[in-house]
Every structure is written in structure tokens, then in C-alpha cells.
């Protein structure tokens, strides 16, 4: 966990003071809503359907137990007792009062948290592999670099009024779990021929109305130049990104229109003047930041536990949970525990204050006080002794978070949709709940295997529907909710955008349509073939034919 020094603390404290003054000016009428809106947005405060919504940053998805307890406190004290973990590894509170927002931010600052860069046309919270630092396949921990980006991008004077929001993701593993190819900038750490570690810089990916896969602008960027290169890209985008049409304002459109070659030429031109300047990263400063991550101290343990292996066999429920939710850790005797925030029939990504407290306690007792948030809206206990797994499972069952469905049909990503969001055209959460319940009743999850269903309530694609194996997009047809279904999307290494399977279906028919698609898969797949691979092999026609045959 990164520990603030007095500079970091002073910065967030001053930010709270600044926002308190801005809220005061708004409440007295000194600021109009038009003037206040961008100010509150840059502090993560939206006005949604029912209330203000506060989006709190969880930089690169890493949380301490202390911070999780503070989120529980915010939920109880300022909200209605729960929070919603998002696809950007953040958390949103749906029922915040404007007059309380400065106090909530002050409470957050007391545990080294903030809502900086969570909204507005700025560089947003940088996301990373949720297993950073503990994954078996990792080359280098991406969080050091995310933290450096977090600091550089916070209240950047030149880039606080960009054409549109800007999202960066970093992966330190060859197996991309951070979706770097569908970000404005994706950074993939890798080794060059000389064995040095650097970044592949990918630019112009994204979802939304025009989904595009990012292009490589620099195949290998030495680490000390990371910030100067990012600044060069941002400067090109700030000046040349389109501002005439909100749907064409993301950097992906610029890259698409001028081509990656021209983009590279312009970036390199800017970079020339910046490369050897003050943005160059000094190794001692990087080492200092790395050191403040206070690496976990592991015990020397046997790699396996015979007792746990036996229990896995004897207790079927525990065995299923182990298979679906627990993955290997780089440290012998430890495991990574994924906690599904997708219990059957519940809103995806929601956690109550009591659940947050309980997970904080679990982290203190069993995970060296650390928790991760995933972009699939789940939580992770990253440093768990294998011998502690049965106790954790029992406790998770007790608090209703033992769903054994990570990566399966029940592990649905959904944006808040029309139930909360001012931008949405259709509901997302109840669609997810119905699908979840349907497949839980059919007890089909494990048999279906890997299947990512992603639901967005509008074209802004907060639910990442384009990269869902099954993507579901809510649209408004003459005041009725309809849902467009796509197949074959993926945000992983071989990223792809899903293909629309046919005409949109009505709200009442979504579950039936998904069931139909899944059954076509089960009938069509080769042995052990994943849903995504079947779709890639046979195309969408068999799915389409069967889905619309009845109509």
C-alpha cells in the first residue's frame, strides 16, 4: 500500500478546503449551477436522478482495511448504508447531500483518500491489474507507475479542460487484466531484447459510441521518459482533439482521423522539447515511491495444505468456491481470494456498510490489511494463507458474499443504469439481477464456464458491453426499454469488439434471449471450448438463427 508523505497529505487537505469554499459559494448563490458544475465534477460529485452522487477514487484499485472502514462510515453517515463499486475500480455513493460533501471528503482525506480526477474532462483514475504485485505472470508491479501517473495528473494545470475525459490503464503482466487496448492510453510493461523493462504505449482505444481498439504509438518507451511522453500525447490531444461534437471528442477519434503514423509524428515533435526536461524520472524518486508501497512481509510456508486439499474434496460448496474464486499467488503457501460482489439476484458491485466492515476485518485478519477492487466490480483479498481459506469462506457465507461465480455467467458487469444515472436510457441492474437469478436457478454456472456478460444502460458504455462475451446495451425506443445484444467482445489480450446479433429485444425478453444464446453455445461447443472461442469459431450466424427463429 502506498503511504502518503506530508506533501501528498497537504495536497488533498488543501483540495478539501478549496472545495468547501466552492460549495459554500454555490449554496449562497454566488456561483451559478453552470459555474459550479465543472467544479463539483472535478471533485467526483455528480447530480444524478435522485441525489448527488460522490465517486471516490480508489487509485489502481488498492485499498487498506482502514480505508475500507472509512468507506463503510461514509455509507452510513452520509448515504443510505451502501456503496457501488464501479468498472473503474472506484466506489460511488448514490445519496449524498451537497451540504455534506465537503465533510465526506474531509473524512476521506483523513485516511489518504480523495475524489480527485474521478470526473470531468481530465485524466481520470488510472487503473491497473487487480492482481498487481501478487500475480504469477507479472514482470513488474504496475502500481508504482500508476501512482506516479496519479500524482502527475492530479490538478494538471494544462490538462484540466481537455476535449473529453481521459482514461489510462497499466498492466505489468503479459496477460492483460487491465484492458489496456480499450483505453485512451494503455501501457503494457514488457522486456526488450536487452532485458530492460519499459512500456508499450497504446493510444486511441475506447468504448462508447465508437468502439475502437488502441494502436501502438511507441513499442518500447524507457521508464524514465514515461511522464514526458504522456505529457506530449496530452498536449497533442488538448490542442487537436475535436471539441465540436461530444461524441467525437475522445482521443480515439483523433487517432482514427489522422492515423497513428501522423499521431506519432506530432507526439514525437512535442516530446523532443519535453523529453530531457524536468519530467524525466529520477531513479531515486521512483525508488522512494516504490519504497512507500511498504511491501507485504510474507511468512515462509509450505506450498500446499493437505487439510485444505481434503476439505476441498469433502465440502462441495467450498470446492466450487475454491475453483472459481481462488487463484495462485506468487508466494508459496499464499493465495489470491476473489470476493464476488455478484450474489445471486443482487445489484452487481453493491456492498453494504456492514459487508465493507466485515471485509475490512477479514483483510486485517487474513490479508495483511489489504484489499483490491477489480474492474469487474468485485473485491480481492490479495495475500491470503492457504490454510486460512476455510475460515474466510465460512465468514463470506455468513455475510452473503460467498458466491462461487467469478468469471462465470453470474459475474455480470452492469452500470447503474436508469435506476440511478441521469444519462441512462434503460435500466441495467434489474436486467443483471434477472439473468443472475435465471442461471442460478438452472445451476448452469460451472457447466457454462467462462462467460462475461456486460450491461450498459446507454451508449456511454460504462458497463463495457462492447467487450462482453455477451454485451447488452439498453436503448430507448419510443419510451420503451429495449436491449441490443452483441456477441464475441473481449477486453483481454486479443481484444475485440462484439458484433450485434440482430434487432434489439424488449426488457421482458432479455433473459430468454441470453438463455437461448447460452443454449446454442452448449449445443455447439467443442469439448472445453470457452463461449468466446465458440463464437469466434462459428461466428454469430448460428446464434442469430436460433435467437430469432421463434420470432
Amino acid at each position, binding site marked *: 500500500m502506498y503511504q502518503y508523505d506530508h506533501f501528498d497529505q497537504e495536497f488533498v487537505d488543501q483540495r478539501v478546503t478549496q472545495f468547501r469554499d466552492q460549495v459554500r459559494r454555490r449554496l449562497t448563490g454566488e456561483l451559478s449551477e453552470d459555474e459550479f458544475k465543472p467544479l463539483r465534477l472535478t471533485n467526483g460529485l455528480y447530480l444524478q436522478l435522485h*441525489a448527488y452522487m460522490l465517486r471516490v477514487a480508489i487509485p489502481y484499485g488498492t485499498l487498506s482495511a482502514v480505508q475500507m472502514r472509512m468507506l463503510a462510515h461514509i455509507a452510513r453517515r452520509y448515504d443510505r448504508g451502501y456503496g457501488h463499486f464501479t468498472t473503474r475500480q472506484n466506489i460511488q455513493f448514490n445519496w449524498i447531500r451537497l451540504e455534506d460533501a465537503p465533510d465526506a471528503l474531509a473524512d476521506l482525506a483523513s485516511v489518504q483518500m480523495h475524489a480527485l480526477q474521478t470526473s470531468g474532462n481530465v485524466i481520470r483514475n488510472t487503473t491497473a491489474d487487480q492482481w498487481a504485485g501478487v500475480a504469477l505472470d507479472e514482470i513488474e508491479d504496475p502500481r508504482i507507475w500508476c501512482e506516479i501517473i496519479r500524482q502527475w495528473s492530479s490538478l494538471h494545470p494544462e490538462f484540466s479542460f481537455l476535449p473529453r475525459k481521459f482514461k489510462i490503464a497499466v498492466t505489468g503482466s503479459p496477460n492483460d487484466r487491465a484492458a489496456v487496448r480499450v483505453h485512451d492510453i494503455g501501457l503494457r510493461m514488457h522486456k526488450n531484447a536487452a532485458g530492460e523493462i519499459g512500456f508499450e504505449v497504446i493510444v486511441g482505444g475506447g468504448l462508447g459510441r465508437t468502439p475502437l481498439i488502441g494502436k501502438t504509438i511507441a513499442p518500447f518507451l524507457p521508464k524514465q521518459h514515461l511522464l514526458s511522453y504522456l505529457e506530449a500525447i496530452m498536449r497533442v490531444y488538448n490542442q487537436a482533439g475535436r471539441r465540436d461534437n461530444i461524441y467525437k471528442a475522445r482521443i480515439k477519434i483523433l487517432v482514427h482521423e489522422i492515423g497513428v503514423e501522423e499521431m506519432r509524428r506530432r507526439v514525437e515533435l512535442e516530446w523532443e522539447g519535453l523529453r530531457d526536461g524536468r519530467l524525466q524520472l529520477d531513479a531515486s524518486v521512483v525508488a522512494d515511491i516504490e519504497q512507500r508501497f511498504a511491501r507485504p512481509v510474507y511468512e515462509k510456508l509450505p506450498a500446499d495444505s493437505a487439510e485444505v486439499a481434503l476439505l476441498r474434496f469433502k465440502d462441495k460448496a467450498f470446492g466450487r468456491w475454491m475453483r472459481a474464486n481462488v487463484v495462485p499467488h506468487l508466494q508459496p503457501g499464499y493465495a489470491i481470494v476473489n470476493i464476488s460482489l455478484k450474489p445471486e439476484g443482487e445489484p452487481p458491485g453493491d456492498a453494504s456498510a456492514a459487508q465493507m466492515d466485515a471485509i475490512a476485518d477479514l483483510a486485517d485478519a487474513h490479508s495483511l490489511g489489504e484489499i483490491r477492487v477489480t474492474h469487474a466490480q468485485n473485491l480481492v483479498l490479495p495475500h491470503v494463507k492457504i490454510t486460512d481459506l476455510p475460515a474466510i469462506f465460512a465468514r463470506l457465507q455468513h455475510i452473503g458474499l460467498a458466491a462461487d461465480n467469478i468469471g462465470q455467467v453470474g459475474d455480470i458487469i452492469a452500470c447503474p443504469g436508469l435506476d440511478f444515472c441521469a444519462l441512462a436510457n434503460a435500466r441495467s441492474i434489474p436486467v443483471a*439481477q434477472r439473468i443472475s437469478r435465471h442461471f442460478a436457478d438452472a445451476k448452469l454456472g460451472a457447466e457454462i464456464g467462462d462467460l462475461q456478460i456486460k450491461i450498459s444502460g446507454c451508449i456511454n458504455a460504462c458497463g463495457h458491453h462492447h467487450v462482453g462475451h455477451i454485451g447488452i446495451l439498453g436503448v430507448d425506443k419510443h419510451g420503451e426499454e429495449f436491449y441490443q445484444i452483441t456477441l464475441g467482445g473481449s477486453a483481454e489480450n486479443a481484444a475485440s469488439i462484439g458484433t450485434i446479433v440482430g434487432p434489439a429485444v424488449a426488457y421482458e425478453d432479455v433473459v430468454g434471449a441470453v438463455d437461448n444464446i447460452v443454449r446454442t453455445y452448449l449445443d455447439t461447443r467443442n469439448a472445453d471450448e470457452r463461449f468466446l472461442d465458440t463464437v469466434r469459431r462459428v461466428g454469430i450466424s448460428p446464434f442469430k438463427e436460433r435467437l430469432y427463429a421463434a420470432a
Partner: protein
Amino acid sequence: MAKPASSNTRAVTANRLRDGAVVFRTVTGGWSSRIADAETASSETDAARLLAQAERDAATAVVVGPYLIDVAEIGGELRPTSLRERIRAYGPTTPMAGVEAVPYL
């Protein structure tokens, strides 16, 4: 589909500035969180007058973003006609059961 505007019954809604709550412009010129209290307008002129009054409250930092919504009397109750406005008036359609009811060990 655009319905003939003149046949619509309308009310004015907004969010209250200090807490963001959904509110409706009332017959007494105040704001209520219950749609039953809303003043309605059945002509274009009345609707425009209602909105203009509401916009004065937006300028003086009482509410944010007032606008007109279509309402209809259904089962003796005044209700918004669109799903979005029904969700604003009555809350999310998603069950939030058990939010406070998680047992501690």
C-alpha cells in the same frame, strides 16, 4: 412518438440544491418531494408560466435544473408518464433488501 402537446398535463420537477432530492413545484409556489403536491398545467401557456416561476428558484439557488414532465392521473393518483420520471418520483426499481441486515459474527 410526439403526442399533441396541448393534450398533455404537465408538472415541473427539479432537484433541490442543498441535497439533490427530487422535488415538484407545488400549488403554493414551494417545492415538495411528493408528486401528489405538484401543481399541474394543461395548456402551453400555463406550463410556460409554471416553468418560468420555477426558473426563478433556480436562479436564487433553491433548486437545480427545473423542467416540465408529462403527468397523468392514474387510479386517482398523479403519476409521471415516462419510466425515467417514475423512477425519479418513486425511487430505483431495484430491490435493496438486506442493505442494513448483514449479521456480524
